[in-house]
C-alpha cells in the first residue's frame, strides 16, 4: 500500500518536473510582458506569435520587438530548413544502408560494426562539431552550412538506422528468399519488397531526423562558423542580459504543438502498419 502511494507520488513528481516548465512557457507566451513572466499578468496577447508577420511600423512601435533583428531570425530559420533538406535524405540513405548491413549481412564483425555506426549518437555533440570543423578546415572548407550538414549527418543517421533495423528484423527473411528464389535479382528484391515494407518506417525516421536536425544546438554551434541556424539563433536571443524576449516562448509553444502533431501522425501510421 505504501509502496503504491510512493509510486504514485513519484509519478506525479516526474510529470510535474517534466511538464510544469512547458506549461509556464506556454502561459508566458500569451502574457503581454517582457521578459516573460507568469507571476505578473499583463493581459492576453498574440503579439509574440504575430511578430513574424507583423507590419514593419507596428513592430517599430513595440519597445521589446524593436530591439530584435527579425530578418536575421527568419534567415537563420531558413538556414535550418536548408540544412534539414540535406541532412534528412542523407541520413535516411546512410541509416538504411547501415540497417540493411547490420540485419542482413551476418558476420562476426557485426557486433563491432554496430558500435562503430552508433558511436556518433553516443559521442558528445561538441566533439562531433569540433571534429567536423577541424577535419573540413584541414581540407580547406570553411565552417558554414556545409560543415553543419556534415556534422549533423554523422549522428542523425543513427536514428533512421535504429528505426529501420527494428523494422527489418521483423520482416521474415523468407520473404526475401522467396523473391530471390522466384528469379528476382537482389536489386529487384530490395525495390519491390524491402522498400515498400520499410516505407512507414522511412516516413517516421524522416520526421525524427528532421526534428533532430532542427533542434540540434551543440554540434551545430561548433560547426557553424559565421552561419546561424534556428537553434543557435534562439540560443543567442536567450542569452540577452535583460531577459529573453517572449517571442522565444511563442516559438517554443509552436514547436511543442508540432511535436505533438508529429507524434500523433506517427502513432496513426504505426497503428495502420500493425494492422497489416
Amino acid at each position, binding site marked *: 500500500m505504501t509502496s503504491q502511494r510512493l509510486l504514485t507520488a513519484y509519478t506525479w513528481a516526474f510529470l510535474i518536473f517534466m511538464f510544469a516548465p512547458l506549461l509556464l512557457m506556454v502561459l508566458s507566451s500569451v502574457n503581454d510582458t517582457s521578459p516573460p513572466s507568469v507571476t505578473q499578468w499583463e493581459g492576453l496577447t498574440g503579439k509574440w506569435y504575430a511578430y513574424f508577420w507583423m507590419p514593419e511600423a507596428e513592430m517599430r512601435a513595440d519597445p521589446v520587438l524593436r530591439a530584435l533583428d527579425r530578418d536575421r531570425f527568419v534567415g537563420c530559420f531558413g538556414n535550418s530548413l536548408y540544412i534539414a533538406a540535406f541532412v534528412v535524405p542523407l541520413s535516411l540513405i546512410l541509416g538504411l544502408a547501415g540497417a540493411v548491413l547490420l540485419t542482413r549481412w551476418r558476420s562476426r564483425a557485426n557486433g563491432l560494426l554496430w558500435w562503430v555506426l552508433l558511436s556518433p549518437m553516443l559521442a558528445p555533440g561538441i566533439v562531433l562539431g569540433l571534429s567536423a570543423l577541424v577535419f573540413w578546415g584541414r581540407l580547406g572548407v570553411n565552417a558554414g552550412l556545409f560543415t553543419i550538414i556534415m556534422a549533423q549527418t554523422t549522428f542523425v543517421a543513427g536514428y533512421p538506422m535504429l528505426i529501420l533495423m527494428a523494422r527489418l528484423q521483423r520482416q*521474415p527473411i*523468407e*520473404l526475401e*528468399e*522467396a*523473391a*530471390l*528464389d*522466384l*528469379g*528476382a*535479382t537482389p536489386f*529487384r528484391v530490395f525495390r*519491390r*519488397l524491402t522498400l*515498400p*515494407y520499410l516505407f512507414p518506417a522511412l516516413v517516421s525516421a524522416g520526421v525524427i531526423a528532421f526534428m533532430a536536425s532542427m533542434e540540434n544546438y551543440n554540434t551545430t554551434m561548433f560547426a557553424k562558423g559565421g552561419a546561424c541556424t534556428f537553434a543557435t539563433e534562439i540560443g543567442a536571443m536567450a542569452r540577452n542580459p535583460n531577459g529573453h524576449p517572449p517571442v522565444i516562448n511563442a516559438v517554443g509553444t509552436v514547436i511543442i504543438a508540432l511535436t505533438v502533431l508529429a507524434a500523433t501522425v506517427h502513432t496513426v501510421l504505426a497503428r495502420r502498419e500493425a494492422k*497489416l
Partner: protein
Amino acid sequence: MRGNDVTLDNVSITYPNGFRAVHPTDLTVQAGEFFSILGPSGCGKTTILRAVSGFIEPSGGRVLIGGQDMVGIGPNARPTALIFQNLALFPLMKIWENVAFGLEARGLSRRARRARAEKLLDLVALGDQADKTPSELSGGQRQRVAIARALAVEPAVLLLDEPLSALDLKLRQHMRAELRAIQRQTGVTFIYITHDQGEALTMSDRIAVMNEGRIEQVGTGDEVYSAPATAFAASFVGEANRIDGRVVAVNGDLAEIDTALGRFRARNPIDLGAGDAAMLFVRPEAMRLGHTENGLSARLMRRDLEGAFLNLFFDAQGIELAVHVTNDGQVAIPADGAAEIGFPSGRAVILPAGPLARTGQEMVA
C-alpha cells in the same frame, strides 16, 4: 512444364559453427517424380532442400539438376521453385501480383503477367480471389497461392518445405490429394520435405528416410513400410513392436534371434551373421492372437476399441507389444488377461541394433 532429375553427388554440408548437418550423401530423384524426404526435425532434410534451391552451397560434392552442375548458380538462376514452410507470401501485394512476381523478373508486360496469374489461380481454384491480399485468405487458400506462385516460373523442380504443417488435419488431408493431383497434371519433379509419415506415404512415388544428417533408406512407401532397412526407419515410419536380442543362426532369407522373450525366426534383409546385436521389428497388424509361429506369453494391459479395429496392448516381461486386429467379434481374452500371441516369420524383420526414433518424435510439428 516438364520435370528434371535431381542428383546429389556425394553432397555434404557443414555449417560455419562446425555442425555437420548432412553427411556425404548420394541421391537421385527421377524427373517427374514425387519424392519425399521424411525425418524428424533437425535431421538435415531442410538443409538438403536449401542446397538444391541454391541458398546453401554444399561443403563437399555436387548438386546436379537435369545433369547440369549447379555450383556457383544462385537461387534466382536455378530451375527450381521453393515453397516455404511459412509460405512467405508477399503481404503488401495482391494475390495475382504474388503469383506474377516471378514473371516480373522475366520482363513480361503487366497485362501478360495478369493473364498468366489468372490462369494459374484457376488451376488452384482461386480464380475469383486475384485482387485480394494474402491476409484476406484462409490458410488453405494461402497454401494454394504459394503453389501457384511457384508454378508461375515454370520450374523443372518444385521444392516443398513442410508446406502443410500450419494447416488443420482436415485441410491437410485435402491438400495432400490436391498436391498429388497438381504434380501429376504438371509433370514437375516434386521434392517434398516432411516429418509426417502419413503425408510421405500417401503422396510419394518414393521416400527417403533421414536421420541425423544421413539417409537411412530410399524406397517406395510400401518398401519403406514393409521392409525397413534400419532400426530408425522401422521405428520412425509407422508403429512397430521391438524386441532386442542377438542373432544365433542364419537360415536362407531368415535368421533366428535370441531375446528375453525366447527365440524367434524372422526375415534377415541386411544379412546379419550369428552373434550380431540385433533388433526384431513387427508391425502391430502383423501380430496374431493365439498359438502361432513365434509364439510368446503376454498379459493384456489395455484394450482400445477403434470400431472396426481393436488395439490391444500387451506386456511381456516389461516389453510392451501392440496388437491390431480386426474387430470380428471373436477376439476373446481370459479375464486375467493372460494370452498367447505371436507373428508369422515373413512379417517380421531382424535389423542391426541402432538408433531409434524417439517416441512421439513424428508428432512434433
